[in-house]
C-alpha cells in the first residue's frame, strides 16, 4: 500500500475524503483509487476535502450516504465544512422517503 495516501475516501460513492493529516494549500491529495488532486485550502486533519466539484444544492456524500447539501459551488480540492454545507431539512428527507414509498412516516 502506498505510503503517500493522506486522505481517506470511506465509501466508493463518496464525493469527499477525510484528511488523515493537516493539508496545506498546494499539497497534492492522494486518495486510494482516486486521481491526484491539488489542495486548494488548508484542511485540518479529520476535516473533509472535495474529490469532485460539488455544485450548489447538490448532495455531499460521505459513508455512501447524503450527509448534507452544498450551499455554494464547491471546487475540487476545497474544504467542505459549515461555511458551504448545510444539514438536511425535513423537506429533503421527505424526498428521500418518497423514493422508497414509505407510508405513515
Amino acid at each position, binding site marked *: 500500500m502506498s505510503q503517500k495516501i493522506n486522505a481517506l475516501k470511506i465509501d466508493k460513492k463518496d464525493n469527499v475524503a*477525510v484528511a488523515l493529516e493537516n493539508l496545506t494549500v498546494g499539497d497534492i491529495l492522494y486518495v486510494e483509487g482516486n486521481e491526484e488532486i491539488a489542495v486548494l485550502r488548508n484542511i485540518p486533519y*479529520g*476535516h*473533509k476535502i472535495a474529490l469532485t466539484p460539488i455544485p450548489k444544492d447538490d448532495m455531499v456524500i*460521505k*459513508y*455512501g450516504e447524503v450527509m448534507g447539501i452544498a450551499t455554494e459551488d464547491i471546487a475540487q480540492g476545497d474544504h467542505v465544512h459549515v461555511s458551504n*454545507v448545510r444539514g438536511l431539512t425535513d423537506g429533503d428527507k421527505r424526498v428521500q422517503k418518497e423514493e422508497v414509498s414509505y407510508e405513515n412516516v
Partner: protein
Amino acid sequence: MKTFNGYRRPNGTIGVRNHVIVINTIGELAGLTKKMANLVPGVIPVVHQAGQSQYEEDSKQTIKTLTGIAGHANVSAALFLGMGTEDPAEGIVETLKRDGHNVHSITFDKDKSITEALKEGKSWLENALTRSKQEKTEQAHVSELIIGLECGGSDAWSGITANPAIGSFSDSIVKDGGTSILAETTEAVGAEHILANRAITPEVGNRFLEIVKRYEARAKAVGEDIKAANPSPGNKTGGLTTLEEKSLGCIKKGGNSPLREVIDYAHAPAEKGFVFMDTPGYDVESVVGLVAGGAQIVLFSTGKGSPTGSPICPVIKIGTNPKLYENMPEHIDVNAGKIIDQKYSIDQIGEEIYAKVLDVANGEITASEKYNNQEFSIWRLAETT
C-alpha cells in the same frame, strides 16, 4: 468454513465463556452479592443498584434483563439473591429452569441468618463451579454468533476509522449467516431516515423511526433538544459538519446490510442478520442490554479509552487513533488507528476484527476481561418511587 469452539446449552444456544455467577435482584443486596462471590474464587458477582421501588415499566425491564443475563449462553450457572415476599428471584429461576438452565435462588428474610444464607450459597456455587469445569466445548459455525456493536468515549476519528471498520466486519459476519446488533438510539437521531430506508419492510422501517421519535420525545420532556445540540462546537472543530454526518459515523458500525428487525432493550433477536436494539447512549447500560439480548461478544469502539467491560461477555475494544493505542495498549484489543498512520484500509481492519472475534470466541481473553472490568447497570426508564 469459519468456526469456533463453544459451550452448548440445553436450550440450544452456544456460549463463548462458561461463567458461574451470583446476581442480586435488588440494589439492597449489592454488598452481599459481592461477599457471596468472594467466598468461592472463580465465581463472578453481577451487581447492580436497581430492582426496588420501581414503576411498572422499569420493573419489567429489570426482570427481563436479569433473566437474559442469568440465562445467557456464556453462563454455566447462576445464583440469584433476593429479599422479601414479592422478590422476583424465584419466578426468574422457575422460568430459567424450564429452559434447562442451572439456576438457584436464595431469599433473605427474617427467618434465616445471613451466615446461614451465605453458607447455603457457597455450597451451591462450589458445586456449580465443579460442574462447569466438566463441561466440554463443541465446534460451531459463526452463524451462531450474535455480536453487539457499541461505542463509548468517541472522538473525531471514531466515525472515520473504528466505526466503519466495525461496519465492514458486520457486513462480513452477516454474509456468513451470523447476527450483529447495532444499538444506541440517541446516536441515530438525524440519520434515522437512512437506517429506516435500509429496513427489509416498511413495518421494520417505521418501527425504527418510532423508537427514535420516542427517544427524542423523552429527551424533550426534560428540556433537551438532541437535534439542536448536535453537532456540538467541539464536533465542528473536529471536522463534523452536519447532524447527519455525526449520526452516520455512529450507525455505520452496522455497515451496509439490510435492517431485518428492531428489538426492545434486553430482548433477543428473532431474526439472523443485521438488527437494531433500542438502548440509551450510556455505554454501560447499552452493553448490558445487548448482552441480556444474547450477544456472546460485544465490539466497542473508543477514542478516549473507555474501559467499560461486562461481567459475563467479552468486550473487544477497538481504538480509533494511534495515540490511544500508544498510551493505553492495555485497554485496546484492535488498533484501528493504523488506518491513519499505517495506511491500512477500512476493510483490512474489518478483517482483523473478524479474526479477533474468532480468537475471543475460542477463549482468548480480551483487555477488559484481563482487568476484570465488570460494569453492570440496567437502563432506567422512569424515576424510582
